[in-house]
């Protein structure tokens, strides 16, 4: 009788004498577990590590680009003074206050502004 089989039978004898046995049990119970233990681990070899780091870095770079384009405003500050003249002046950049007309006692002109 081989060693493993002898150990198995001794285990059965002990379980029976202690009255701790199931009514039936699979013959291949131990081999199923050993198969799982011997299964090569899909683990952490050099290639997998490299792949993980590369994908993490790619993700980080893409995220940074997206954040950069969404969150940062496009104002570019310059250390030197800007000499270039603004070609198309707008209302808001004029230094003078626009006159407003008090409409309480007089008739409002068609393009006049209301006093606040």
């Amino acid at each position, binding site marked *: 009788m081989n060693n493993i089989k002898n150990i*198995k039978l001794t285990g059965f*004898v002990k*379980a029976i004498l202690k009255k701790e*046995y199931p009514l039936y049990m699979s*013959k291949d119970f131990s081999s*199923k577990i*050993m198969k799982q233990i011997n299964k090569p681990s899909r683990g952490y070899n050099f290639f997998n590590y490299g792949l993980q780091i590369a994908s993490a870095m790619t993700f980080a770079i893409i995220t940074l680009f997206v954040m950069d384009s969404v969150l940062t405003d496009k104002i570019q500050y310059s250390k030197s003074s800007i000499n270039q003249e603004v070609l198309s002046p707008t209302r808001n950049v004029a230094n003078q206050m626009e006159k407003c007309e008090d409409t309480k006692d007089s008739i409002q002109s068609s393009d006049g502004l209301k006093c606040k």
Partner: protein
Amino acid sequence: MQDDDKPVLDEIINGNISKYEIIINKYQARIISLCFRYTKSYPDAEEVAQEAFLKAYNSLNKFRFESKFYSWLHRIAINCSLNYINSKEKTKEKETISENSGLTEHKGVASIETPYNAYNMQTMAEKIESVYNSLPEDLKLVIKLRDIDDLSYDEMSNIAKLPIGTIKSKLHRAREILTKALEKYTEDE
């Protein structure tokens, strides 16, 4: 505390994985029986026991030999069984809500017929009990002290008033008789 499994476990820890089969074969029946107390189904008990053996193997490095290996494995098996019950209860709750099937019996209890590719432990137990009862008193005593009461050789020597060497040889003889009685049930392997 002295543990008979220590030499085998040391070998496993040092990389001889195949030796774990010894541990499984030694304790499988008792662990499956323990899990069955919780699962009430033999297929589920085997599944939970399998999980317990795998967990024990994976955390073998953490075992400090402060208790017997079997006590540790026993504890792991109980935890796995409790986890099984918790997950089963969650599933059962869902089933009860959907079809009110709370009174259905567990599948394994109803069928006692031995499935294909399984040991009929009941038949083996009947055989072992009859062989054990027919053993000479001195052999019966050593088997009782060692395998049922889990005593150490020193304690056995004190009780039986025999030298340890004699105890060991009587135990070997008694086990040989008992395991031989089981051989025909495992011949097809």
